[in-house]
């Protein structure tokens, strides 16, 4: 049941990211909206639930993006591993750390993209535009990332309450 909510949220975010945001100039260099979802699931949800979603959306994103196949799967997988490792010694769910968690996640995603580009593209040069893109995305992540995490948290709590109520009525 839980997967339905995550799949719905993920699909909604992809559609917004690929159809609505390109029409709004201010969001021209917004970060990947699935990054906060992956981070939220990695921090707050069970491993099994998270890995299923990572596989589904990594696969979907790889198929609609122009990058090499497996790039988004790689990004989400390493984000998940890094967060799971970080929560062993850091309380990343802390409201003070949340903006930085999303920002670091976005930075990591961009570094993997640039790394992959460097791997497949000869004579890749780091241009000012590339640096600007990364900086703008990280800044967006610092200021908006925590809101996404709070929104996901709120949706999951509502969903849990709703499903519990339905199952209680049935039994």
């Amino acid at each position, binding site marked *: 049941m839980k997967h339905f909510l995550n799949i719905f949220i993920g699909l909604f975010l992809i559609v917004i*990211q*690929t159809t609505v945001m390109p029409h709004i100039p201010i969001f021209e260099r917004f970060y*990947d909206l699935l990054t906060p979802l992956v981070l939220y699931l990695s921090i707050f949800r069970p491993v099994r639930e998270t890995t299923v979603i990572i596989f589904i959306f990594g696969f979907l994103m790889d198929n609609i*993006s122009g990058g090499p*196949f*497996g790039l988004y799967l790689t990004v989400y997988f390493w984000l998940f591993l890094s967060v799971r490792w970080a929560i062993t010694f850091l309380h990343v769910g802390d409201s003070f750390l949340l903006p930085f968690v999303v920002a670091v996640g976005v930075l990591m995603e961009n570094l993997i993209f640039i790394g992959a580009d460097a791997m*497949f593209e000869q004579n890749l040069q780091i241009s000012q535009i590339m640096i600007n893109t990364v900086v703008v995305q990280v800044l967006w992540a610092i200021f908006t990332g925590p809101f996404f995490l709070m929104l996901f948290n709120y949706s999951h709590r509502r969903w849990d309450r709703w499903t519990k109520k339905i199952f209680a009525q049935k039994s």
Partner: protein
Amino acid sequence: MFSKKMVMIVGVIAMMAVNIILLSVFNRRYISYYRPGRIAVSVIAPFQKASSKSIRFLRDIWYHYFFLVHVAEENDTLKKTLDKSFEKNIRYKEIQLSNSRLRSLLDFKKTMTDPVLSAEVIGTDPSPWFKTVLIDKGKEDGVRRGMAVVVPKGIAGQITEVSSHYSKVLLIIDPNSAVDALVQNDRSRGIIKGDAAGALIFKYVLRKHDISVGDIVVSSGLDGVFPKGLVLGQVSDVFKPKAGIFQEVTVRPYVDFEKLEEVLVVLNRKKPIEPSK
């Protein structure tokens, strides 16, 4: 024998190595969709289509009914007329030049009369690092990998992946795109490549050619993908380094890729690349 930390470090390094190898293996940028990939696109594309149509519908209502109805309509018509005139102008100039050089082998008529299929852009690439769009026409509409995608103002890109009802177009501003091109006036040849800034780089143009800012760059047709004579852009910067045999030429594309909504897929080009099985 080994500490837990050591095992973990070795494990992470091994995973990274496996990941890089897998990425290299699966780097199927030019490999057509396999079945699960087609399903994935078929899952997401209808939502994108519905969302794009809704946005266009709302925007059209805003522009045409709430905001200067007549002016907007007149503007649309004028823009379309201007696009057509622009395309005609470039085409006539090409024909004139080729006639003057008595190159009878050039079959412009055939090139320009290739059948085309109109398609709507339903989604853009989720990443700012890659420049692709999804269109609402696929294999069942006759679209094949390798077909050229054009708009009235020039070349937009090339079909790189096809599913039943949708296709992915690699735009010419993507760093992985390459178009064989020539300068319209002096016929100097080179390869047009995309760059991260959304401009075009005209590569491998010999130093001896005298190219100036404002020159128009058109497709040469020699790559077997794009019809000859379609406009790519205008030279915006020329730099001749002291060493080397090539000059560095930057081209500003005529097509506004931020506002790409409808495109034409050129069907029945000589040899569209067959999808791999």
